[in-house]
């Protein structure tokens, strides 16, 4: 039980504690040291001397038990999905997710592949999206600062009473254990091919009708 996170309504003590917690949590975001694909190289660069995560108190922890933030740096394949989800689930609450790069946002260039999830939010509640392929270290730092802002702006009072995160699609094709955050899901739901989030493609036929004199 948590006095603040489980509180029914704000009181004087909870509001004061809430301010303190938001201050502490937003200034000490430790990402779990999990690199999934190529964006993790940029993530390591951000931790290295030139951009230096440690300036903001962002320090990689290898154990998810001691981490607060999960940076998803790359495409989540269906083979990796249960592992990513398990590592996320084993992080101590409160916890946040950053989707880094196009693959983690929407599947990116691999979205049509049979074994890549269309984005991290298929299985994880993503808080911050950082576009880029991969994002520059500055872009990742900017994303982390956005997350810091998000944490320090969001009230923690009663945060555990918020509705559970429901993934937009229920993956049943591969063995995911839908537990914890996904309690709200109904059992027996069917895996639906996710809607591709890109705008509908202009039919290729149009290209042929392009004015030839200008080409």
């Amino acid at each position: 039980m948590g006095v603040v996170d489980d509180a029914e309504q704000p009181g004087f003590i909870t509001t004061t504690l809430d301010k303190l917690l938001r201050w502490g949590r937003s200034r000490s975001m430790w990402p779990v040291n999990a690199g999934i694909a190529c964006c993790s190289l940029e993530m390591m660069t951000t931790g290295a001397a030139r951009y230096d995560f440690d300036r903001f108190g962002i320090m990689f922890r290898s154990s998810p038990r001691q981490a607060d933030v999960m940076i998803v740096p790359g495409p989540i394949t269906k083979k990796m999905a249960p592992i990513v989800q398990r590592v996320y689930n084993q992080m101590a609450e409160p916890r946040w997710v950053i989707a880094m790069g196009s693959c983690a946002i929407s599947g990116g260039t691999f979205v049509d592949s049979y074994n890549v999830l269309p984005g991290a939010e298929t299985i994880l509640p993503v808080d911050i999206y950082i576009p880029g392929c991969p994002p520059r270290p500055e872009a990742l730092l900017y994303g982390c600062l956005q997350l810091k802002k998000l944490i320090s702006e969001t009230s923690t009072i009663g945060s555990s009473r918020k509705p559970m995160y429901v993934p937009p699609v229920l993956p049943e094709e591969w063995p995911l254990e839908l537990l914890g955050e996904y309690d709200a899901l109904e059992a027996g739901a069917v895996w639906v091919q996710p809607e591709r989030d890109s705008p509908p493609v202009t039919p290729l036929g149009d290209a042929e009708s392009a004015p030839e004199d200008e080409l």
Partner: protein
Amino acid sequence: MFGSGLLKGLGITLRHALGRPVTELYPFEHKNPPANSRTFIAMHVNEEGAPACRACNTCIVGCPDRVLKLVKDPDDPKRAVEFVVNSGRCTYCGLCVENCPFDALYFTQDYERATRDKGALIYHLIEDGACTHEGEVDRP
């Protein structure tokens, strides 16, 4: 000799500690990324302020990731009414920019696009036939 290597290593790290750190203080000092870095797609405008796009569809044909969307003006097939970029999908490969026969597209140096709202990653370059951003003036 045993131990001299350890002392040498200590000396090297100490020299680093006494030297100036190489860290860039990012949010406080902005250093522009290299000129050839590919960050975000933007569109040039004419001298009149109209978008430089001639709606030829070459960029869309070239795009490997189905990132772009183009809606032509039904009355004027050389005029784009809408041009949408899904930056949450784009790999910034630059094929659209290279393919454009009118040099209408270019890469910006802007990287601060992290957002809480996934929908904000889909942005319009042309909306209702007009450029939505202060683009650079079209190169002659």
